[in-house]
Structures are given as structure tokens and as C-alpha cells.
């Protein structure tokens, strides 16, 4: 590290332009309308509706994390930390759902469906 002293006044921060924030906001609103619209699709396709709703929610969350939470412009350590949370979340979901959704494979007393 240099001890020149004046480096303490200039960090390498990325100031996201307001235009980018507004574009992300508009995208989020469009996705919100799409979610509600998809819920009223005519017909009876529960699985398809669930997949559409969750996909849109994940896209919205990714937009918020990358732009509003600045992870896109963040350091590599920030990337690792932000990903770790969602990675561990996926592990928890796979283990929990893997248990509950396979219980009917081997019927046992006291080990019923929730």
C-alpha cells in the first residue's frame, strides 16, 4: 500500500446512472403485470402457471440483486457472498422437498404426507 495519503479520498465505486435504475424499474413493473396476467390465463394448467409465476419472481429478484443492490458492479467477494445465500437456500429446498415429495414411495405408518 502506498502511503501517499490522498488515495483515501478516491475509492473505485461505480455510481449507477439514474437512467439504468429507471429501466430496471420499468422492467419490474412489466414483469409484475405479466405475473398477474399469467394467473388469469384461461384454462386449467396449474403446473404451467406455477412455473411462470416463479420464473418471473426469480427474474425480478435477479434484477433487484444485480442493479438495485449493485452486485453486478460489486467485487468478486461480494459476488461469492451474494451467491452463497441463494446457493444454500437451494440446498435447503432440495433436501426438504426431496423428503416430502418422495414419502409416498414407501408407505410407512407415522410417516404420512403433511
Amino acid at each position: 500500500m502506498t502511503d501517499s495519503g490522498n488515495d483515501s479520498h478516491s475509492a473505485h465505486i461505480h455510481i449507477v446512472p439514474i437512467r439504468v435504475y429507471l429501466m430496471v424499474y420499468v422492467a419490474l413493473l412489466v414483469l409484475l403485470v405479466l405475473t398477474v396476467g399469467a394467473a388469469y390465463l384461461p384454462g386449467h394448467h396449474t403446473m404451467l402457471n406455477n412455473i411462470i409465476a416463479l420464473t418471473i419472481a426469480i427474474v425480478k429478484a435477479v434484477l433487484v440483486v444485480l442493479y438495485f443492490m449493485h452486485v453486478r458492479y460489486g467485487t468478486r467477494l461480494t459476488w461469492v457472498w451474494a451467491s452463497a445465500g441463494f446457493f444454500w437456500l437451494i440446498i435447503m429446498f432440495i433436501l426438504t422437498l426431496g423428503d416430502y415429495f418422495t414419502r409416498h414411495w414407501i408407505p410407512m405408518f407415522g410417516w404420512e404426507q403433511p
Partner: protein
Amino acid sequence: MVQEQAQQTLSIQFDDLDQQNESYIVGMWTFLVTEIMFFGAVFAAYLVYRVANHDVFYLAHLKLDIPLGFFNTLVLLTSSLTMALTVHFAQRGRSRQELLFLFITMGLALTFLVVKGFEYHHKYVEGLIPGPAFRFEPVEHLRVAQLFFSLYFAMTGLHALHVLIGVLVMAVLAVLIAIRHPSVQDFIPVELVGLYWHFVDIVWIFLFPLLYLIPR
């Protein structure tokens, strides 16, 4: 494009400002990871019960007010934008605009809570609070419908608590900025509150479709 950038002060335990900023942001993310896991557990419980009782959950969710839920989603997404702008102006050292957008964000957060309060009150009037007074037609679905509303109140209640904490933290931040307190000369406190607020927004992004928009 070169923009003016707010002055930052280096604490003695850090080599330089980049290291200092990264430490604060990674520290906040560490907290958010615990929050993700905390909410994740409630979401997992909801998912397990919803898959097992899909049809009754569909019937029970018809009691929720979709227009109000939609309005609240709109309010929260907008508050995320205004919070992002708050951070933007903090990074540029424009404390007046920073304060303005912080107040707008607080106003939107309070709007969310008021609407949520009306929704809760409506559920109370309709006898949809889990407990001895819970009423649901047809009666054979009462137990599972009560399960749905237990999950509904647990999830939206925890979320509303986070919104409330967010409002309080923003109020403290606003006072510190208004009196030009040394601790908020740096934009990092605003950035960290922003990270928390966007996380609260993300939770609602998942809550809204999962609770209000159950497909038949």
C-alpha cells in the same frame, strides 16, 4: 462520464477505501444470507403444505384481496427505486436530494404498512384469523384453510415486521443526515440500509405470487 463523488474517510483498520467499502458490503451480505435462510425456511414450509393441499389453498386464497396485494407490490417496487436513488445521491454527496428520496421511501413503506393493516383488519372482520373464531365455508376444509391463513399471517407478518424495522432505521438515518452527523458523512450507511430494503422488496416479490395468485 465523470461524476462528482462523495468524500469518504478511511478508518485506521483498513488499508484503503476499496477494502473498507468491500468489508462493509460483504458484512451486510453476510447478515442478508442469514435473512435469506430465515425466510427460506418459512417459504419451504409453505411450499410443502401448498403442494399437499393445493385445492383447499386455492379456495382459501380467494379470500385475499388481489387488487390490494397488487397495489402493495407496486408501492414496494417503487420504494426500491426511490431507495436506489437515495443511494445514488448519497454516493454523489447530494444530501438534499438524498434526504428527499429517503423521505419518499419512508412514505411508501408506511403506505405499504397501512394497506397491510387494512387487509389484516378485513381478515379479522371476516373471521379469518386462525384460532377459535376462525370461520370457513365449506366446513370440511376448515382445518386446511386455517393452515393457509396461519402461513399467510406468519409470512406477511414477518415481512411487515421487516418493513417496520426498515422504516425505523430509515428514520434514524434521516435524522443523522439532517443534522450532518459525522457517521453519515460517508455514503456506506445509506448503501447498507439500501441493501436491507431491497432484500425486503425481494421477499415480497416472492410472497405476492405465492400467496395471492394461486392458480386453480
